[in-house]
């Protein structure tokens, strides 16, 4: 449980940081400073922040193409993330990846994965290696409800269960696979049924509730550590923004989005809960907001000033550099 005030405030700050950094991303994307396709996590912040809070530094994280929030919650700096968005050499992937390909070895952050479902087998492999090497770590693998449609999902769950691998599968069910609603892309919409078919224990949690996510993940991770076997956590969440910057959202109503944003905003909910518990006073959220806005502005300024990858590097890193 998030017992201390300092810890609660730190997590709230991460949520604010993700929100403000992504709002900034949308702004500079329109100005042409970010290329590629940009998928915003706004609305889902409590999932990454709550889940990451329950992981240790020695654990592995595999994320999706909507992974800015995961990277920031895992501790990558806004500067490293924003520079990567800009494709600058100072980015966390040296400007090679962009929005969908954030990596960081010190954070054991094994990437954004731009192919839906592509990260799941990778997570299985990391856990298999941990198991073979006698490491204690857990691999947390994030993916959306759309990935449940892919064959790799089922192959990965079967392997993880069969080989008893320490994988925490975190399904961020935001109710839409790109533009197709859950009941239009899943035969059985209770996603927890699927891992259970492979013998993997599964629970779901309100993904808009930071504290519920943190508690559920802490329990799930402890189960993975205790049994050295997989666990499936479904976080029920909602994406407030379009799938990508080119999505006119013909598949859902404005009213539906507005209702989620008004009633279930994870930041509002966290502030209300912290206030109720007496862990925060009225002025603190605004102060946090100001602080992260300043950090985001700095990140953008640094990204703007940083150099692009030089043209001479076009062929670099295709294969290992020649030695000697």
């Amino acid at each position, binding site marked *: 449980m998030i017992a201390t005030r300092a810890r609660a405030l730190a997590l709230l700050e991460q949520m604010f940081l993700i929100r403000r950094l992504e709002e900034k991303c949308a702004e500079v994307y329109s100005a042409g400073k970010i290329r*590629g396709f940009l998928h915003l996590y706004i609305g889902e912040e409590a999932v990454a922040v709550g889940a990451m809070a329950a992981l240790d530094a020695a654990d592995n994280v595999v994320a999706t193409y909507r992974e800015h929030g995961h990277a920031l919650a895992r501790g990558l700096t806004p500067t490293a993330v924003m520079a990567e968005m800009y494709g600058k050499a100072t980015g966390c992937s040296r400007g090679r990846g962009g929005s969908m390909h954030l990596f960081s070895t010190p954070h054991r952050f094994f990437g954004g994965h731009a192919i839906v479902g592509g990260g799941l087998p990778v997570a299985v492999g990391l856990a298999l290696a941990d198991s073979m090497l006698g490491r204690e770590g857990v691999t947390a693998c994030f993916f959306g409800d759309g990935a449940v*449609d892919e*064959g790799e999902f089922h192959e990965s769950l079967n392997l993880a269960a069969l080989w008893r691998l320490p994988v925490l599968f975190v399904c961020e069910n935001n109710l839409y*696979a790109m533009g197709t609603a859950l009941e239009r892309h899943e035969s059985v919409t209770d996603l927890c049924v699927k891992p259970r078919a492979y013998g993997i224990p599964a629970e779901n949690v309100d993904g808009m509730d930071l504290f519920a996510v943190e508690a559920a993940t802490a329990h799930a991770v402890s189960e993975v550590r205790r049994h050295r076997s997989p666990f499936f956590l479904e976080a029920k969440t909602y994406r407030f923004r379009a799938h990508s910057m080119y999505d006119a959202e*013909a*598949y859902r109503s404005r009213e539906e989005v507005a209702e989620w944003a008004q009633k279930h905003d994870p930041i509002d909910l966290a502030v209300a809960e912290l206030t109720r518990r007496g862990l925060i006073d009225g002025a603190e959220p605004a102060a946090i907001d100001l602080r992260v806005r300043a950090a985001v502005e700095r990140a953008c300024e640094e990204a703007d000033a940083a150099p692009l990858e030089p043209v001479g590097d*076009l062929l670099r890193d295709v294969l290992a550099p020649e030695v000697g």
Partner: protein
Amino acid sequence: MTQMNMVQAINDALRIAMRKDERVVVMGEDVGKVGGVFRVTSGLYDEFGDARVVDTPLSEGGIIGAAVGMALYGMIPVPEIQFSDFIWPAYDQIVSEVAKYRYRSGGEYTSKMVIRTPVGGGIRGGHYHSQHPEAQFIHVAGLKVVCPSNPYDAKGMLLASIADPDPVLFFEPKRVYRAAKGDVPEGEYTVPLESAAVVREGRHVTVIAYGAMLYEALDAAQKAAEQGIEAEVVDLRTLWPVDIETIIASVKRTGRLIIVHEAPKTCGFGSELVSLVCEKAFYHLEAPPVRVTGYDTPFPYTLEMEYLPLSHRILPAILDTARAV
């Protein structure tokens, strides 16, 4: 005649084919209610309903596999893979099922379908929204591979593909989806598959291109003409089976050959074209064939305009090849 861009022309072809033959079914990720990420299937869901414009889960292998089954019953599925970069989960189905059904059943069955997918870079799409994977499919016997460069060909070749008895991979060069505009006849017409088009005549050097790079080749040819070099530009249109007669006839006139494609050079389609020309017109060549292509790298994030074989890289190849002795 109506002015259309490629998106509109392909949409028009799908609508005509669906109105004409109720066996034609469009399927794919967000092709229905959303109308496709590039809006190519826009409006079809409203006209034909969800039984013929099927929003599928994110299951590329499942989409193509299901299309195989539909095709075995004589339906004509036109599945869309949202970006060609997402086609790999379906590669097994395409290689092992789609391409080989006719052969391995001794002609008892076919899995005729038209797989539409946007290809190519130059839209700031990054690693996995930019690739141009024709060579991996041309190598698989049993598939036809088409890549039109303009609205007229796109409509006529899509209708020809839907009418064709064999499975067709229909590559749509997304960089020119809206940029390439032109007059398109109303109603049904076809552009025969397996026919390349000489889109600019010239006597000094033959330049082969297709898809979005055709426009780069034409631009380079125009600039070369200003320096007295007349390049003949051939738009392949259908990549496989390739119209080798048109290529050979041109090479026999010019004696010099340049091939342009976005995909990496090594084992790219250009390698096969050079081999074919050497086999069939070796003694007509007056200079070594040249490939102007993407580099042997993954598709880059920021350096895509350096990676792509744009006009400024094609022009020196034209001049050098034309002047080589």
